[in-house]
């Protein structure tokens, strides 16, 4: 490729869902601003092997850089290794432990984000009572890190709160979150708080809470998007959600890729020129921003996605 227009493929976990559509907005924005051939692809099914195959195809068609949001970071090590051998710049996201990457971009430290949600949950619960946690799947690393960070934060700061039950698995399905949360309520009738991880978790939990009229008796926080959890935020069934803006993350990844290709260096405390990434910290290959957003009833209208 010539020095100006580069082919940059952003490969996401799965195509078509809100989250990554929002990311695609950022990628497109970037393409428009810079005139680079930046585009986004993703597999039809949430399966690490499909994503690996897709990256394989991208390498074969000779892209200059890859921005990858790995479904399962470990599974992509070999294929990303091959990409780097082929001289392709690799930027990853949500994969702090990734070995074969030029830089990994994290919106934040996962444990901190989990603790941030816990802080809000604990405040809402008045620092005491039973709570339960949900993950999309036990095999999802980030979900587990958020929840682990949250539990650690609770144990360190709120001794009067108790975690009941296991990490409940919802398979990224609102219906599952709905039935699981019902069951949690039956098994632990005194429960006061729930924290979700998959974007559909709070939607399912919120539905249960609303159905039982427990909006005021319980506190529900979790990772989600306003477009998914909005209706429950309105009624108070869900008290707050946290997320980071995938559009900004997508744009940031592409920006980083170009920086690397142009031989620019990333340094601790650097400003990437994007909200939440004004002063990134560098830890080895991992670049951390402070890009989380907390949303509740009051500010949800500011985030139309």
């Amino acid at each position, binding site marked *: 490729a010539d020095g100006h227009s580069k082919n940059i493929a952003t490969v996401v976990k799965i195509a078509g869902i809100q989250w990554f559509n929002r990311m695609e907005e950022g990628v497109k924005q970037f393409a428009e601003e810079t005139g680079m051939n930046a585009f986004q692809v*993703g597999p039809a099914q949430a399966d*690490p092997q499909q994503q690996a195959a897709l990256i394989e195809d991208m390498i074969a068609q000779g892209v200059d850089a890859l921005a990858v949001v790995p479904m399962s970071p470990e599974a992509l090590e070999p294929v990303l290794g091959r990409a780097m051998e082929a001289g392709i710049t690799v930027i990853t996201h949500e994969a702090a432990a990734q070995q074969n990457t030029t830089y990994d971009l994290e919106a934040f430290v996962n444990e901190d984000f989990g603790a941030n949600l816990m802080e809000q949950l604990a405040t809402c619960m008045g620092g005491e009572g039973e709570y339960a946690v949900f993950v999309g799947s036990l095999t999802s690393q980030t979900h587990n890190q958020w929840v682990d960070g949250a539990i650690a934060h609770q144990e360190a700061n709120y001794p009067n709160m108790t975690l009941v039950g296991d990490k409940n698995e919802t398979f990224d399905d609102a219906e599952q979150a709905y039935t699981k949360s019902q069951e949690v309520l039956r098994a632990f009738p005194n429960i006061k708080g729930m924290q979700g991880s998959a974007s559909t978790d709070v939607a399912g939990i919120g539905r249960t809470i609303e159905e039982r009229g427990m909006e005021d008796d319980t506190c529900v926080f979790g990772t989600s998007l306003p477009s998914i959890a909005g209706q429950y935020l309105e009624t108070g069934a869900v008290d707050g959600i946290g997320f980071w803006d995938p559009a900004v993350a997508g744009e940031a990844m592409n920006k980083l890729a170009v920086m690397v290709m142009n031989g620019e260096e990333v340094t601790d405390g650097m400003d990437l020129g994007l909200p939440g990434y004004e002063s990134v910290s560098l830890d080895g290959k991992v670049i951390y921003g402070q890009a989380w957003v907390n949303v509740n009833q009051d500010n949800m209208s500011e985030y139309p996605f």
Partner: protein
Amino acid sequence: MSTNTFMKNATAAPEFRLLVIAVFIFGLMSVLSPDRFLSSQNLTSMAFQFPEFAILALAMTIAMMTGGIDLSVVGVANLSAVVAALILTQFSDTGMPASQSAIWLAIAITAALCVGAIAGLINGSLVAFFGLPPILATLGSGLVFTGFAIAMTGGSAVMGFPETVALIGNAKLVGIPVPLILFALLAVLLHLILTRTAFGLRVTMYGANPLAALYAAIDINRMLLKVYVIAGMFSSIAGLIVMSRANSAKADYGSSYLLLAVLIAVLGGVNPYGGYGRVIGVVLAVLSMQFLSSGLNMLQVSNFARELIWGALLILVMVMNTHAVAALRGSFAKSSK
């Protein structure tokens, strides 16, 4: 037999149509994106990609030949890989000299194959001795195998292997990708088993008429056990390839391969009600799928559209294989009056 009638028979076979389809897709993709699709990069990359699910499709094939199905292939593959991975991470480390790690790798592979065999024995027993319908037996056992893999790992990935592990899935032998060699060996093996051994013939006969097989004094239970053990061991080999290519093992790898394996087997002409199936058909189906899939990726066609095209291809092939159009004309001719 004259070569003429031989040609006629060969071109009438469903496998011939698949060949035409495979060649057509290859040609189409080459035309649409000549510099990229025909690049050696891409051809090698495709050769690395398909063996994982192609081997699962072979496992599916032998189960379908008996009129059964094996929905546990992905579960078995992952459980085998997890067991192998745990052995590797427990007893070897990345810094180990190759000679030593090779021994551990051999042990891990043996263990994985044993897991596959045991899983196959369980499936076979459920079908043969307890009389469960295969679709339910393997649906249930698949959940159990996946469940064990989750329970053993807590759901997270097992990683940190010695470098030798990467050879299975990523190396080349005289320029040919190792996974492709493995697949070719297994395909030939299965072909020989099905057409050149007493066992294979019995499998086909049983698939064609189980009751007659009973009256022909075929030891059905033993045969079914073998079928599912073979399917299980093929699955573990697929699992090992996935493990090597992902440099890790996890309970949910390859979850989309299950339906894909069924789809490929059926597209390859295997009769899901038993009694007919040829490995060459399955191989052609695999190639068609891979050409299509990589080609569409190059053209940046949505991956959802790819699913649509797969489904349409499956039905199209069926319509061509059965004399469906004639049947349609017949059915409307009759009901028109």
